[in-house]
């Protein structure tokens, strides 16, 4: 049996991950240099369509590794199915894209087979009979050449963008698709996937806010933030803060205004107990109207404020909230 290269293309929820084409390109280049046979596999449940899509490119054969237990994705099921499949086909080299999913199951798969992975490679070289893979070190400043010291199958993952997916070769005819059913027994899958969720993006985009009520150290205590929040609500604006407040964890980082936070230019910026260090000013000086409340009449914030209120914010804000509410109620 000739040596083979197996590319494991990635699918998620019935869709092919386009980065797989890059890995196929890498596989095709390796196959032509080594003279080994290129095959591909797709793992999942009900994936013959995806397997056919892969088969439209130049490869000797495409396997659809099927089991109902492969959907939804679990690292246990994928590692189990691929181990069984790879042990039966004995490819010399297994290539995968370095995706989150692959990162999740490939260490387990390789360890289960007593092999090793050269991960996140950006290229390869053929030095005589030896295949050498290139990995980046020191944030890309240095490249390390790594080769396998163990018996095949050898596992390699390629970094996103290392090869060009649009350069993938199309074969004279579509490759044959062979379905391989794997039995995944009870007790193999110990993971129970929960609902898929997206990590919440930045919850608030302060740059879009027309009114911002911003608090600084003068607010004294975390519980007093509520006061500013009420004012922001009454005005229909957003709450923000200077660095010390976010640094203390009283408000999330994404509400920090200034050189190490966001830069905003609302119609109205109400600065409560903010002294106005330049680090804060650079983040809000573009506001159309700035109202500053501060006990210290010499606070630098007053130099850029359109309206300066010298006084204790705890005396000023509560009646202000009342007045705003009243004004809004009477429309």
């Amino acid at each position, binding site marked *: 049996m000739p040596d083979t290269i197996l590319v494991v293309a990635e699918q998620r929820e019935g869709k092919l991950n386009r980065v797989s084409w890059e890995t196929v390109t890498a596989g095709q280049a390796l196959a032509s240099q080594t003279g080994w046979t290129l095959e591909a596999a797709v793992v999942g449940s009900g994936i013959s369509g995806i397997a056919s899509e892969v088969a439209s490119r130049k490869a000797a054969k495409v396997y659809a590794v099927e089991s109902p237990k492969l959907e939804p994705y679990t690292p246990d099921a994928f590692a189990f199915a691929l181990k069984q499949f790879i042990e039966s086909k004995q490819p010399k080299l297994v290539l995968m894209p370095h995706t989150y999913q692959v990162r999740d199951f490939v260490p387990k798969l390789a360890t289960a087979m007593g092999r090793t992975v050269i991960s996140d490679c950006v290229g390869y070289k053929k030095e005589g009979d030896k295949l050498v893979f290139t990995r980046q070190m*020191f944030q890309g*400043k*240095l490249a390390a050449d790594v080769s396998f010291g163990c018996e095949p199958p050898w596992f390699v993952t390629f970094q996103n963008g290392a090869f060009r997916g649009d350069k993938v070769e199309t074969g004279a005819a579509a490759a044959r698709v062979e379905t391989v059913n794997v039995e995944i027994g009870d007790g193999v899958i110990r993971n129970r996937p929960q609902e898929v969720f997206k990590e919440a993006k930045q919850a608030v985009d302060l740059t879009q806010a027309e009114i911002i009520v911003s608090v600084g150290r003068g607010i004294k205590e975390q519980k007093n933030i509520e006061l500013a929040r009420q004012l922001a609500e009454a005005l229909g604006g957003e709450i923000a803060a200077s660095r010390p407040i976010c640094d203390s964890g009283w408000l999330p*980082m994404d509400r920090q205004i200034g*050189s*190490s936070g966001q830069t905003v230019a609302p119609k109205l910026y109400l600065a409560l107990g903010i002294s106005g*260090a*330049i*680090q804060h000013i650079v983040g809000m000086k573009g506001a159309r109207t700035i109202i500053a409340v501060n006990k210290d009449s010499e606070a630098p914030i007053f130099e850029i404020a359109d309206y300066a209120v010298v006084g204790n914010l705890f005396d000023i804000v509560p009646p202000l909230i009342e007045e705003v509410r009243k004004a809004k109620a009477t429309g």
Partner: protein
Amino acid sequence: MLVFRKPLEGIERPQMPADVIIVGGGAAGMACALRLSQLIDAYNANNPDSQLSKENIYVLEKAREIGQHCLSGALLDPRSIRELIPDFEKEAPIEATVSKEAVYFLTVKSKLKFPVTPPPLRDHGNYVISLNRFVKWLGEKVEAAGITVFTGFAGSELLYGGAANGNRVMGVRTDDKGVDKHNEKKSNFEPGYDLKAKVIILAEGSRGSLTKQLILRFKLDADRNPQTYGQGVKELWEVPAGRIAPGEVIYTMGWPLTSREYGGAWIYGGKDNIVSLGFVTALEYADPRIDPQHVLQEFKKHPFVSALLKGGKMVRYGAKSMPYGGWWSLPSLGGDGWMIVGDSAGFLNSARLKGIHLAIKSGMLAAETAFEALKSGDSSAATLGQFQRNVESSWIKDELWKVRNFHQAFTHGLWPGLLHAGLQQFTGGRGIRNRYPSAPGYTHMKKLAELPADGGAEAPLLGPAKGDARLTFDKLTDLYHSGTKHEEDQPAHLVIQNTDVCNSRCIKEFGSPCQNFCPANVYEMVDDTTEPNGKRISLNPSNCVHCKACDIADPYQIITWVPPEGGGGPNYDGM
């Protein structure tokens, strides 16, 4: 709750072998790398059959770009750079050639010019440079020579092992990246590398953090004078044309310091109407309320200085400590697997206020020793100890020997100091004895109870400067002009051994001097009713300009400065 940075435990770190690692890409480190490259090139040209490789020689630099953490006055004595690159003037970034020099003694309203410039401060033949630009240029040459500079990587720990009962320096661990405020891995976590090298050269600059570990571990400063330091605070100004000639050099002594504090100012004229000015205050003052950034602000109010700056604009700010101790304060310089060069060792001539030329020379000498180690394959103390002897037979010793007692002479104030320094001039540096003693600067700090409540003569220098936003600036405004930036979500890299000392003792005894000696508002006592004194220490690590003053001046010696995540820090463009 403060959480401090430390290398994570129980994780697997990538290992990498190396021949030579230079920690710190400043003047000393870059000169060392370049000299090593020259020696290897020459050797390889003569020995076609046994080539030495440069591939495994690395420079670690914590700044994001080469030179971004380099700050100095700066005047360059060209002696060593000329040895390294004979025709350096053709290509090095030089701001001006020194054209005129003067030394003044300032009083509150007037200035007295020294009739003759004291010999150590004669600067003809020297150059005004921006150390930032100069090191950038040197770094380009190092990279062009085929030596890799890892920017954005700090040395966070030394690795020991091997021979000498596991006491050989075997390598350097770089900083862990992607660690959050609570010392937990973030999604972009990348462990530090363990770089195993035959030779480690510490070129971290003043009060290097690895150097400190090494000196403590092996007591490398036993029977030496303790190192003493000055704190330099600098501003770069753009002034109206005609105020100062390019290459004009002015030094001042006296006001605003009293005769009890040691220090002085420099003013250098650069090109394009750029003026470099700064004030060095020795970190050995008695009054814990003194603030070196405030001292610079007061200095600018002198009519002589304010006239120079009037109508100008402050464009950059920075601060850095510098080792003053001189010859008697140098630690052991080489041992099993390691050497120490530049400011990390203390190669600075405090009488001339110059160290760059000594940093370069020490780097070159260390390179020569490292080269011998690469050839022989032996990098034990037997080989690397030779660096010490090479320094002792070089002109570094000639120069430092003559001023070996200079700084110590000022221990008891300006007037006795000038007397002793004058005497030393005529006795080849001896003065009244061969070795004047010294004490660590922080031991001079007095408790508030022993000091006048109103501050006495030092009153104008105490506490935070207010600033008028034109001539003088408060600290945060100055800090803004340092361009300092750090990843905010990381543990504090100012490691305080015991914050109870800050909250219970220091606040009462010394009035929390960390707020004063830090030039970047990193340290802050914030209100906290649960603390016995109503205040609690709070840190703003992302303000840190990496000057190390806290590590040096803290009266309890409980602050250890360690490098934050690589890439963070000031941006000293043009400084």
